[in-house]
């Protein structure tokens, strides 16, 4: 039998490196973008986002000039999709309806005709960012407590059920840090911004982050009475190996769908799907290589303490 659990020091090191890299990405982002650990979208800080589809090939500088002439200094102009799509994304400060209308008219006259039926714009005035961030943090906290309670209750018949809940949450938080780090990195490299969709994806990742944990724990729960006399480490190892096929097969299926959406779906939901993809991958890793070995480490530590106390 392959001893999976014995490799835990290696796993913890990998997890530590991933966490460190994520923190580096988050801090780099904060240094680069005025203290924003993730680049914040206009959903949360206010501003205007245009997605403009032109009927002809246009120059980035020409687009920028129209915005500057209309009093929008320093707009962020980016190409969206392939060059042939003639689609551009412009981010700038909050604009009144009349301003939007004037900008569109000026673009028509000076740059190229904007196809209204293929374009969109979104403008947000107030800065609800702090409020949303607070609610999001609250949602993560609520999810953590709910999951801790649920696992604690669900595994009440195994010895030390509280530990199962705690290691699940540690795994979940590691997963959240890695996912945030990935998004911060993409913010630096690709200009991805955290918007309402990102929050949805993050909360979904949290929701799924205990799936693999629960399956392995369920098997441990079943194996404990069946293999009395075996060490806890052995039982856990057996349980992981017995369920690893399922974890991989399930992961694969979710990945099929997500990769298909990444390849063929619209450009606007790519970051949303990418977050889920990374979150799911990291979920399998944190479940099998953080939560489960942590449970064994905790058990052994408690065991050693008990022995020490008995000897003293």
């Amino acid at each position: 039998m392959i001893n999976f659990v014995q490799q835990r020091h290696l796993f913890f090191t990998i997890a530590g490196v991933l966490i460190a890299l994520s923190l580096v990405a988050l801090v780099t982002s904060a240094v680069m973008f005025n203290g924003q650990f993730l680049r914040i979208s206009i959903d949360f800080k206010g501003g205007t986002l245009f997605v403009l589809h032109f009927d002809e090939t246009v120059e980035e500088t020409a687009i920028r000039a129209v915005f500057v002439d209309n009093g929008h200094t320093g707009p962020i102009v980016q190409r969206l999709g392939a060059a042939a799509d003639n689609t551009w994304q412009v981010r700038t400060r909050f604009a009144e309806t009349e301003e939007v209308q004037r900008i569109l008219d000026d673009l028509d006259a000076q740059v190229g005709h904007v196809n209204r039926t293929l374009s969109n714009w979104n403008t947000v005035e107030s800065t609800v960012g702090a409020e949303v961030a607070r609610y999001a943090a609250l949602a993560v906290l609520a999810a953590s407590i709910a999951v801790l309670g649920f696992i604690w209750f669900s595994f009440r018949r195994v010895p030390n059920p509280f530990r199962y809940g705690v290691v699940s949450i540690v795994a979940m938080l590691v997963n959240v840090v890695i996912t945030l780090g990935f998004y911060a990195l993409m913010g630096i490299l690709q200009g991805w911004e955290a918007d309402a969709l990102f929050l949805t994806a993050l909360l979904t990742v949290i929701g799924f982050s205990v799936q693999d944990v629960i399956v392995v724990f369920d098997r441990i729960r079943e194996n404990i009475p069946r293999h009395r006399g075996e060490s806890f480490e052995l039982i856990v190892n057996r349980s992981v190996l017995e369920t690893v096929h399922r974890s991989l097969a399930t992961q694969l299926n979710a990945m099929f769908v997500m990769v298909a959406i990444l390849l063929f779906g619209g450009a606007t939901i790519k970051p949303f799907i990418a977050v889920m993809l990374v979150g799911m991958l990291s979920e399998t890793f944190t479940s099998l290589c953080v939560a489960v070995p942590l449970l064994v480490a905790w058990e052994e530590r408690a065991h050693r303490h008990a022995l020490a106390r008995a000897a003293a």
Partner: protein
Amino acid sequence: MERRTIINFVFILLLAAMAIYGVVWQQHPAWVTNLLFWQPKASRNLDFQLGLDLQGGLQVLMVADLPEGRTVGSQDMATARNIVENRVNALGLTEPVVQVQGSERIVVEIPGIEDPAQAVDTIRETAMLEFVTPPAGATAETLYAIRELQMPISTTYLMSEAEIQSISVMTDVLLFQTELTGGDLDSAYVVRDPNTSQPLVAIEFKSEGASKFASYTANHIGDVLCIVLDKRILSCPSIQTSIPSGKATIEGSFTYEEASQLAVQLQYGALPIPLKIESYKAIGPSLGALSVEKSVRAGIVGLAVVFLFMLIYYRINGSAADLALALYVLLNLLLYKLVPVTMTLPGIAGFLLSVGMAVDANILVFERMKEELRHGRSLKRAAEAGFSRAWTSVRDSNLATLLTCAILYLFGNAFAASLVKGFAITLAIGTVVNLFTAIVVTRTLIRMAFGAAGEWIQKHTWLLGL
């Protein structure tokens, strides 16, 4: 084969037939749609409800703009909502939605709109207040009826002479002459009649308005002057004396609440609370269609791979799972139509992802079944053990997902992110449907297959992916 299995199978077939009829057929007769008693009577249908991001349109989010420390009453929000809805309806567009979100926000969604800029102007326009002379033919009874029925009237405000001329020859149209507008008004507040202590609304005009009002009242003593808000008559007091000061009172058999509401309406325009636009979003209609097309294509590719994987990896079991998965897709789509759930781009992505995750329960069972077979169990006992032993895992992981859905939903509700809410509902529906299809449907199909050809399959275990 057991009787129960056969009954289950018939039930599943019926359900599948229903789902295919509801989802694949485009037209449904009235008696079918009338069965959807929980949907509002006027709009019962079996169509997909597409969100703004998929059909294009305008979304405006307005927030109460009050000084620090003042809170908004839910009654005021409801009144403001009704007024905004009236204005939006006046644009004559199809199916606008106006809703109160949270405690201080109103969201307006207008699908498929051509000119978003004009609509935004209409929505946020402060209401139009006018003081008008009724046309000669209007009796007190007519004015009373128009007021009671809240019928919109025509006024000469902003009309050219030619338009006024052409309308006045139409005998069936009552044209009211606009004398003063809300722009002339300085303030409005409630006072009590010193003699009867009846509540009255006192108004004060700005200096220019005051002189217009003075000369008008001097010439029209004994006549009626109507106060009109957004083309609807509020009241028609009669002029008792000439009023040179620019201060007047509006009498009526008001209760104190009615009087203060009128005063507020005169002060702020129609809205009981000032609203400011917090965000607006305009999405080109073709862009939405393009998104639908791309999502459908991505979905077909992704699902095809999942179906193939299950078939190749789990063979006979996999084909049972594929049939159950097809039913899962159909039932989900049917529920989206029945509830109805508004489809958005992230909603579709969430649904597709849920299909990928839906096979998890089947995989748990099948892997368990293979294990039992390796331990030398007979086919039927391995199958039953697979389902019953995997059940606790399936139950616990799905319950955890439902818990998350509840948290997502509450979170979405708290800060008016309908996107998050929609996603949570889709995911929750998917989880519940999955419990049914992955367990009940797959088990019935597998029992039937093993019942019919169990011995043969037992000899060819490669058919189970072993």
